[in-house]
């Protein structure tokens, strides 16, 4: 059996050497197979790209269509008379006096005067609820800023309540069944809105509240300012710590460290750290910084520490790759000139590796910017209305804000969640664009 196969095989090989026509036929068949598999591969590639692009497109359309509404806010122009008697204030009143005045009841009275037909207690409440609960405060601040307003009548742009806003932006004037209606307005409220719209008092403007306010339990007053500043402060701490540490580590490991078991061990561990789930770094930060060292919780400083731990491996790995990519001939040239190791690194290796290092750093920063889990662990998930002014003020960050808002049932928070996601994405795209630009710029020099 074995010998006969062998003879078969040798006969076939003989035929190959004898018969060039057979050879050509076999080649043609092989070529066909090859072309076919190449084509298949190309199509598989195209398909996966299309699929990926479709997913991204779907994501973007979804986020933008949901979030675009949050960039406008409904206001109602209402004429308000700053009644001296009712408020007990004059244009000469001091700030303290103004602060003591009852703007709440003044505001309610002003509304009742606009709608004398509303008499019932329940209906009155519904009327007040059409406007942001912050309105009395806003009126008071107007008077504090300009006491001369007392006794005059002003057209005040009142912030519509989130239900009003949602109803006006999404349902008003559209034929819809009861069930489909968005918003939670009563019939009375709807009729008030209707009359306001007809009188031309209702306007939608670009929503500056989104960018000038921090979070709030009132959807129409919630903004991302605090979260954005929290993110920036946290990232600054992260950058200030992780870049120098990572670059120093990379340089030491690549240029100075002896090759032995210990450096191998360190290298393996750095690579492993890059794959550790980020929430673990949060737990580590909680255990070490907060529980052991007793540092304050919820602050950008600790957030920065934790994110530094998280981004270090990424930056170290890319920095090492950048250093490795520096041609050895440059090092030789420097050594040949009598440069010391330090001079070689500082004068020649580092400038050439810098674009790669910076790209790695920015990618690490972008990762840190989008990180939520480790920050939850150290308490940066708190409901913080004040805008942080320093790295030791309690703060939250943009992705955590998104996480918090996405939990809220109000329609307007759904919008604002998507809007905050858009802002976060804009930051990420900007950072990545900056990385590309920086790389091009630094590389173009030589």
């Amino acid at each position, binding site marked *: 059996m074995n010998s006969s196969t062998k003879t078969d095989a040798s006969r076939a090989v003989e035929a190959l050497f004898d018969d060039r026509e057979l050879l050509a036929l076999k080649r043609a068949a092989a070529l066909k197979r090859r072309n076919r598999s190449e084509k298949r591969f190309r199509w598989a590639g195209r398909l996966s790209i299309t699929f990926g692009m479709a997913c991204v497109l779907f994501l973007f359309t979804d986020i933008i269509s949901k979030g675009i509404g949050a960039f406008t806010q409904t206001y109602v122009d209402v004429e308000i008379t700053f009644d001296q008697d009712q408020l007990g204030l004059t244009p000469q009143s001091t700030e303290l006096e103004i602060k003591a005045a009852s703007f709440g009841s003044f505001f309610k009275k002003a509304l009742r005067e606009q709608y004398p037909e509303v008499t019932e207690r329940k209906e009155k409440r519904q009327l007040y609820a059409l406007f942001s609960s912050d309105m009395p405060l806003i009126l008071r601040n107007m008077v504090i800023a300009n006491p001369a307003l007392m006794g005059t009548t002003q057209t005040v742009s009142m912030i519509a309540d989130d239900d009003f806003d949602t109803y006006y932006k999404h349902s008003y004037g559209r034929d819809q069944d009861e069930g489909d209606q968005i918003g939670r307005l009563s019939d009375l409220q709807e009729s008030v809105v209707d009359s306001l719209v007809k009188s031309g008092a209702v306007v939608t403007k670009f929503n500056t509240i989104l960018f000038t306010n921090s979070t709030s339990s009132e959807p129409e007053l919630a903004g991302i300012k605090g979260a954005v500043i929290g993110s920036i402060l946290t990232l600054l701490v992260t950058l200030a710590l992780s870049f120098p540490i990572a670059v120093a580590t990379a340089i030491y490991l690549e240029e100075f460290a*002896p*090759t032995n078991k210990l450096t191998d061990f360190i290298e393996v561990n750095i690579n492993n750290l890059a794959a550790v789930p980020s929430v673990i770094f949060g737990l580590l930060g909680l255990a070490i910084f907060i529980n052991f060292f007793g540092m304050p919780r919820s602050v950008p400083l600790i957030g920065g520490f934790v994110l530094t731990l998280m981004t270090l491996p990424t930056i170290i790995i890319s920095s090492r790759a950048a250093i490795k990519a520096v*041609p050895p*001939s*440059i*090092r*030789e*040239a*420097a*050594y*040949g*000139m*009598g*440069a*010391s190791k330090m*001079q070689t690194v500082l*004068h*020649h290796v580092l*400038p*050439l590796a810098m674009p790669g290092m910076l790209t790695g750093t920015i990618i690490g920063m972008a990762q840190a910017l989008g990180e939520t889990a480790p920050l939850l662990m150290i308490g940066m998930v708190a409901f913080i209305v004040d805008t942080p002014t320093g790295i030791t003020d309690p703060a939250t960050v943009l992705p955590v804000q998104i996480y918090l808002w996405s939990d809220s049932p109000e329609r307007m928070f759904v919008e604002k969640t998507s809007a905050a996601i858009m802002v976060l994405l804009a930051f990420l795209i900007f950072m990545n664009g900056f990385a590309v630009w920086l790389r091009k710029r630094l590389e173009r*020099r*030589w």
Partner: protein
Amino acid sequence: MNLAQHTTAEIVNETYQTSGHPLLEDPKMRIRNTNVFYGAKQAIFDVNLDIGKNQVISMIGPSGCGKSTFLRCLNRMNDTIDICRIEGQLLLEEQDIYDKKIDVVELRARVGMVFQKPNPFPKSIYENVAYGARIHGLTDNKVQLDELVETSLIRCGLWKEVKDRLGEPATGLSGGQQQRLCIARAIAVNPEVILMDEPCSALDPIATATVEELIHELSENFTICIVTHSMQQAARVSQRTAYFHLGKLIEVNDTSQVFTNPEHQLTEEYITGRIG
């Protein structure tokens, strides 16, 4: 190749005697009983050689014969290779260059090097030439530095070509210009010895001729050791020639004698083209 190995085994024993005249009176560098190892593998076997003052000595031999390794011992460039180990005595002006007291930075300022592939720093032409003076603190002010850069470039015949674009990247120069710039960079710190590791192998014939002429001119003031693949080049530029074979220094003689009347059989086989 078979022939070469066969003859080597026959002719070169573990203890061997270099033919010709490896030793000189009052040399610039003295190399005695030098062995070089890469890990367990020995690359250079018991080399004894003197390098004469203001002379060009060329080192020839088939690929892998250790001539570059030997050259890189002369300014301790092999220090950067962890597994490399050097035994023996290497003296520069009667001073052991592997002495613990010798600073390698100082040594490399005295023994400069030009590499096979032109490797200018990715900086401006000016910065390339000025770099050595900067790190060794040779000039006191900008005017002196400008003067030094100009002198060095003039001596390398590059001044006319680059004087209007000193601030431009050196990497924009042609290969031959880059190599001459590397030579200018090396001589800007006024070394005593210049090591050249196949300086023309990446250049075209015209650039090669220019560089060879330059080597010839520089030999008035510098001691030059050049490793080359080209026997014609060795014949053109050097006064003495050393022939290496499988890590052993087979023959050292005046260049004219090596090429016209080699003493050793291996040398003859190499220069007549039977091995290599």
